[in-house]
């Protein structure tokens, strides 16, 4: 149900069409309709009630998801670039947004969030989008996506979401990307039809030949105003404030877009604000929770009714949350009753009983039975 809800919410926020009469009537009718489904069908929606029947003759149907048709796959270093065509019902995207890709692996729905790395123009021309995903050797999904295009499992995507989108303003731009943080930035850049202001992109990567570099160089040939700087962090070290000021002396006047690992985005957001860039002129998105050795305390980022809480893991997750002064729901504390079931949004956990490692994506976990292997994002409000 939560997935359906999010999908609807996303559709509502990503739809850029003006509200028509039918639409506002629908907005009024929808809660009533949902209530009717809940009462008459004892299901969250008519779709979910009929899904098992649809699937009798349309086995690929999944309520709340959009089917994609795989068009091509290409490997660039540590990345896989997919071009795929979403079903016609899919509601479109804004450059910079991300979506959730779901495939079913032996019956299990495995999902991961990706930024769309292609332009709006490409979507308008042939209805296709590109997704760029970093190969994670420990990941659940990658091994199944790395094969031949014909052998890929059926893919499903959510509606696109996210506020990290290119805003049309007459102001010089500064974009900082690190690693796979380049994907939403590339979608933004390639969607610009005419560049009338200076734009500096500083792209750090551990690879000598970073992903999407060829495509970026092609863009630079079209636009003289695009200043493109690659940093190979292995040889030339990390991007420093001195280097940045050297390239962009007027940094305070820039509108800034940051995308990279959590530490990277936070560090540069902080520095840019110190340089006098107003907070509303900085847009940032972070990702990536790196796999580290277990047994270590891991940072937990917990969504509660009262807001976000950050703490470190100690022992199993139920204990960790209680140590942090939170009040998670629980029952038997030994894995039987599922009272402590909670939505994990990101990160990896280990089952303390079986030793099994979870995936990195969103799924339900039992707090009393799991310990954090990586940094985690939990949604305690999912406990209801």
């Amino acid at each position, binding site marked *: 149900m939560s*997935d359906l809800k999010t999908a609807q919410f996303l559709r509502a926020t990503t739809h850029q069409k003006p509200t028509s009469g039918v639409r506002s009537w629908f907005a009024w009718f929808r809660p009533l309709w949902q209530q009717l489904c809940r009462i008459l069908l004892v299901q969250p929606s008519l779709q979910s009630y009929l899904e*098992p029947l649809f699937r009798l003759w349309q086995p690929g149907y999944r309520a709340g998801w959009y089917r994609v048709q795989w068009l091509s796959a290409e490997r660039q270093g540590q990345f896989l670039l997919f071009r795929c065509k979403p079903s016609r019902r899919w509601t479109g995207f804004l450059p910079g947004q991300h979506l959730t890709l779901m495939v079913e692996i032996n*019956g299990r729905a495995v999902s991961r969030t990706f930024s769309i790395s292609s332009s709006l123009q490409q979507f308008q021309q042939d209805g296709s989008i590109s997704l760029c995903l970093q190969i994670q050797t420990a990941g659940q999904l990658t091994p199944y996506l790395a094969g031949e295009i014909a052998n890929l499992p059926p893919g499903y995507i959510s509606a696109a979401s996210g506020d990290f989108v290119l805003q049309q303003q007459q102001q010089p731009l500064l974009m900082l990307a690190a690693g796979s943080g380049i994907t939403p930035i590339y979608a933004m850049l390639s969607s610009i039809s005419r560049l009338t202001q200076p734009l500096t992109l500083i792209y750090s990567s551990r690879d000598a030949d970073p992903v999407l570099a060829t495509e970026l160089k092609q863009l630079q040939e079209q636009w003289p105003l695009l200043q493109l700087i690659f940093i190979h962090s292995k040889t030339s070290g990390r991007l420093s404030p001195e280097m940045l000021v050297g390239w962009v002396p007027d940094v305070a006047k820039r509108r800034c877009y940051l995308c990279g690992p959590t530490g990277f985005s936070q560090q540069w957001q902080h520095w840019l604000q110190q340089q006098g860039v107003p907070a509303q002129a900085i847009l940032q998105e972070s990702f990536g929770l790196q796999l580290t050795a277990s047994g270590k305390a891991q940072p937990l980022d917990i969504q509660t009714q009262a807001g976000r809480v950050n703490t470190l893991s100690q022992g199993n997750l139920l204990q960790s949350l209680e140590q942090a002064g939170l009040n998670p729901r629980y029952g038997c504390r030994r894995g039987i*009753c*599922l*009272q402590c079931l909670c939505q994990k949004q990101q990160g990896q956990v280990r089952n303390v009983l079986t030793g099994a490692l979870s995936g990195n994506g969103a799924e*339900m976990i039992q707090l009393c039975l799991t310990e954090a292997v990586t940094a985690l994002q939990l949604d305690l409000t999912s406990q209801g």
Partner: protein
Amino acid sequence: MELQSVVDNSTKENLMKTLSQFLSAEQADQLAAELDKLAAKTRASLGETDARYLQRLLAVQRLAAISGRLLLLAGFWSAWWWALGVLLLALAKILDNMEIGHNVLHGQYDWLNHPYLNSRTFEWDIACDAKSWQRTHNFEHHTYTNIIGKDRDFGYGLLRLSDDFRWRLRNLWQFVTYLLLSTLFQWGVSYHELAAQRVFAGRKKADRHSQISDAALKRAFFSKGARQLLKDYLLFPLLAGPLFLQVLLGNLLANLIRNWWTSTVIFCGHFTAEVYTFSAEACEGESRGHWYLRQMLGSSNFTGPRWFHILTGHLSCQIEHHLFPDLPASRYLELAPQVQAIAQRYQIPYHSGSFIRQYGTVLARILRYSLPASARQTPADAAG
């Protein structure tokens, strides 16, 4: 006569042995290791087949519900159509409550990562709020199975099913109470938690703690109950227009059939002659192995064809269900002979028999404990 003697032998044994007398600490650990291994093996084999089974089951349930509701209308032509409609609707409700609802709410299919077939968001076609049921059933009943005073499912606070309970006058007519409970079973299940918390009447028990307020309990009870009443006795009859009454009666009868069936199946799980009861002190700090042992001693199976097992939600394999409440129930039949073999090796009684026999011992048990121990005169009592 034969049933009587079974009852008497088990009661005597029951009073004599405690968990550690059955199995030493080391034996219990071995038992736990063997059963854990069995569970791990089954868990590793879960996949596509189980996902497909659930979808097929849902399709059958939806088809039964839709055709049942339509046939209720056809009662206009012949009462036989109406009767068939009632049976189909009852079948849909039984499948929804037992093989689907009970099992999904146990988290047996959480590994699918399905948006609405998961223990957190699923709701079922029964008066009981799913969350309330999870607290009393998944937590209390499955953690404290057959511990007198802790597992309120043992007799539901209404029936005296062992001499561990003080005899009261009302126990004299408890067979009638049982018939009423069976008829109103869905409301009994729904009111179960409220009764335990003494929400409306009675003094609160000092040792009961609840993670949810009385107000929230009442809200969930009335809201789910009202939705179900509204659905079966107002909205669907109204949709039938002039056929209001025959649809209403059909729904009522379908609900009754479901109530009788589910209550009968559930009573056969824990109230047969052979099952053991336990005192809270004897289970204090029990090991995982002893917990397993208690589940085996406190549950009983019955036999039948495959379709029969599906109609019971595989609660016909109550022992396997209590050992592995979170493994998909459709696997219990293949686990049963393996569990039985393990039980035999450790000389643990494995209670199983035909449905008729097991139900016979349940009825005998209800009648037997209507009388105080002192007033009972059976050959076994006289001899012992």
